[in-house]
């Protein structure tokens, strides 16, 4: 190899390595393989936690019930959450837009979850969420919340 080519390899080598890596990734993707360790798709509650509203719509369109509880893996909203309803997650994560979207998509505030949602919103000092929950329920706000609420 001539000296100028050797020197050229220092400049062009990283670009060639990058191109090689891109080719491997593209071939793997085209072959249906997964170049990175597979991850479970986000649940509706998790999409709510990260505020991915496009993902929420896509998931509901796929037939997932917007009232159905699901766990939230650790790292998305602090520690792992046991199965939690998307509306509750929206309030905990302070995702007011996601909360409104879930309601538009069929998540229901009813007498069974109203107090919990309202108290969660109060506990989070989330005025937007409190207003949205109040507007969605025919009941009056609860007189008191459990300790901490």
């Amino acid at each position: 190899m001539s000296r100028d080519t050797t020197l050229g390899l220092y400049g062009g080598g990283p670009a060639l390595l990058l191109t090689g890596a891109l080719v491997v990734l593209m071939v793997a993707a085209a072959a249906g393989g997964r170049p990175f360790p597979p991850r479970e798709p986000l649940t509706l509650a998790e999409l709510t936690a990260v505020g991915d509203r496009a993902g929420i719509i896509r998931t509901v369109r796929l037939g997932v019930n917007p009232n159905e509880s699901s766990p939230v893996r650790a790292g998305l909203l602090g520690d792992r959450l046991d199965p939690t309803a998307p509306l509750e997650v929206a309030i905990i994560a302070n995702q007011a837009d996601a909360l409104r979207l879930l309601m538009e998509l069929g998540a229901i505030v009813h007498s069974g979850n109203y107090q919990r949602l309202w108290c969660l919103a109060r506990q989070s000092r989330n005025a937007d969420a409190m207003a949205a929950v109040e507007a969605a329920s025919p009941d009056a706000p609860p007189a008191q919340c459990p300790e901490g609420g």
Partner: protein
Amino acid sequence: MATAVSMSVLASPVQLSDSLVPLLQAQEFPSVFEAVRVSANNSAYFRPFRIGQIQVLYQWADGQRYFLAFRGFHVLLVAALFACFVTVLRVTTALDFLMAALAMTVLVGHHAFLGTVWEAYPINHFLEVCVLCLFALVLSRSGGGWWVDLLAMLTFAAAALTLESGLLVCVVLWAAWLAGWRGVSGRALVVLGVLLGGYLYLRFGYFATGLPGLDERDSGFWTTRLSPVELRQRFGADPRPFYVYNVVASLLGVLFAEPRAGLYSVPLQIERGLTIVPSTYLTIGTSAATTACIGWFVWRHAREWVRGQFDDAGRLVCVAFAVMGANAVISYGYTKDEIMSPGGVFYAVAAYAAVREVAAVAARRTPGHRRPELVAVLLLLVGCGWSLRTVGTHYQTHMMAYTIRQQWVDADRWLEGQGLRPKNDGQRQLIRVLRDDAINVTGVQPAFLPKWPERWFR
């Protein structure tokens, strides 16, 4: 590299804020001719082909194939850009090949290029102008002939009537001729001058389009973004200092990655008491090192150029400087990375010629001389830096795609905020299809990504 960029482009839905309105307009125009005719009468901007091209693709999409029409055309433009880029470089030796690989990372990693791929417009006209400018250089380097002259004129007409920066095609053709490439004949360049005169007459005489004023939009100035009102207050009486600032900032931005869109990020971060993020070091460091190589090349050849002696590498660098300079002048009204994208593309061309010569000259040094080792380290740093910046372009494209998907959720509310409402079923259908295209595609989920790319690729 082109395929990788294309895949990132395909992951991006059609952008909302700057795209939906032209598409709704396209739905209202009865024909392509009407779209061109109406848009020729706009004030401040003379871009009749811009809307005309959107209209062509809109009609081809036929109510359903928007994603295929717009994303497909974007991918075609990316492929054309890379084809022209490689043709211009004329790779013949192993060193050429290695330097072309580096130049491609300069092309894709340059911040001015990002704007041509990270947002999917109906048609990304900035990218189109980049392609046409490179194509003009391909014509200049060709063997010539009447059809080359004809293509040169058509290329100029198409570019100039699409965006103002399309006038750079003229700069490419003239600069290439002056540097000694005669693929496009002198007679054709005279005709080109007549066409340019015709453009100016149409714009300032017949249509009285005029020029954009100070109050068109926000603009970066030193470390602050000035609103149109603030711009009028500060520069309304005499806008010339602001225009000079924009020209200088645009040129410095291409050469040194600082300022960006008129804003100097280092003093900005210091002013706000922030730690300077790694991406600032990365972009300024790689750009400064590459520009130093180009500067060294200019210094080495300046005397020959003054005597009218050019080799191919010298011609590439001279044409690149002509484009970067003219691009900066065209950006006098306000500075933005996307507007400087032709300058960024030609910066990559200049980098190819200059860094190749750095390697070739260093290799000729006698054994025992330490300069080759220093040059090897410099080249390795530059190569790694631009490769990282290339990864950054892909990263930012995917992050932007995520943001745009979220924006489409609120498309109806956004339209209402603009005082617009769909006027008929066709427009409602258009919005629905584009929204579904955006929402139904699963893309990168930022929640799964580590935090470091945000600091390195900002």
